């Protein structure tokens, strides 16, 4: 695992479960710190994927963030109370209505 001694003071939620995060973390970093390495399943074959490049180039770290799908979690800063959900397959534009 990639780990750190101090978990952080913010709380975000992944699929409903509380995850600690530090201010300035990307969502992907906070998830990886908590041992969560999968954030979506692919539209093509439904296989699990998660952060790979951490720099916005691979588009594998997509998740639904505060109701919005297709968000690159490695380029999104955490916010206290943020809700992240696994994105299953293709994004549904009507999710956040």
């Amino acid at each position, binding site marked *: 695992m990639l780990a750190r001694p101090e978990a952080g003071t913010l709380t975000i939620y992944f699929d409903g479960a509380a995850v600690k995060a530090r201010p300035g973390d990307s969502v992907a970093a906070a998830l990886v710190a908590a041992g969560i390495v999968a954030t979506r399943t692919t*539209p093509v074959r439904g296989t699990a994927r998660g952060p790979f490049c951490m720099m916005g180039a691979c588009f594998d770290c997509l998740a639904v963030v505060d109701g919005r799908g*297709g968000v690159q979690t490695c380029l999104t800063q955490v916010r206290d109370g943020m809700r992240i959900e696994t994105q299953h397959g*293709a*994004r549904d*534009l009507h999710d*956040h209505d």
Partner: protein
Amino acid sequence: MGRAAGVGIGYRGEGGLVFCLGEAELTDRTALVARLHNQPGGAGGVRMLDRAALERMMPHARLGPEVLGASLAPEDGHVAPLLLLRGLHAAFHAAGGTHLPGAAIDEVQAEEGGFAIRCDAARIDARRVVVACGLGTSRLAAMLGMDVPVHPVRGQNIVTERLAPMLPLPASALRQTAEGAIQIGVTYEEGQDAPVTSVRDLARMAARATRVLPVLKQARMVRSWAAVRPMTPDGYPIYAASTAFPGAFAAVCHSGVTLSAAHRGPLAAGILAGQLPEAVASLGPGRFHARTA
């Protein structure tokens, strides 16, 4: 074809729409549909749909307030063009055809009993030749006594990320592919032969698409592409048979996907028999040449 190639081509023939934004578009489109009905051969069942009918047809798509209706052409449909391409290649191979990709043709000449094609210092002999090179058709057709005018017309497209299904029918300039991406088009730029896109054109297409489906404002475009259509002077296909060199033909159109079934059937049969079928008699290049008094 799907069976022959062993691959589905995503054909859906449930109809095609042209959305009308605002009163003026609705009036114009309604008048056009009426004129089509008045023509010999009819309009193939094309009819106007009002907004209520559209909403019933598309329960997962919330139409923008300016969408007052659309025309529906029931015989229309779409395929997955890339799967069609793949299928055509595979079917051609399966039928025993030889494909030589990357061959630059230097010359094609009529010879004793047929034709000689010279490419990359090699020579290929054939009894019949069909020149179907898109924008390159004019050059080679001329070598075989056919005057086939073709010029470039660029089209630009936007492709979004894959999305859950929401558009059940293809619309003019707005359709959802089998993979879920929404494809938005299209420009029609006469004489432009560089396959590049411009933000001004892309923004205009995006603006219209988001007026039809405002929820698309949240959708991300993941790429644009541009292609160059081989366009004839009147937009209709040209099917030519050489009178100077019988056995040489040319075929060019900008809707090869749409016309693929027709090409595979009657057109191919005619070429094998040595003459074009009656069905395409009015589509020869002679229609562009000055008429004698």
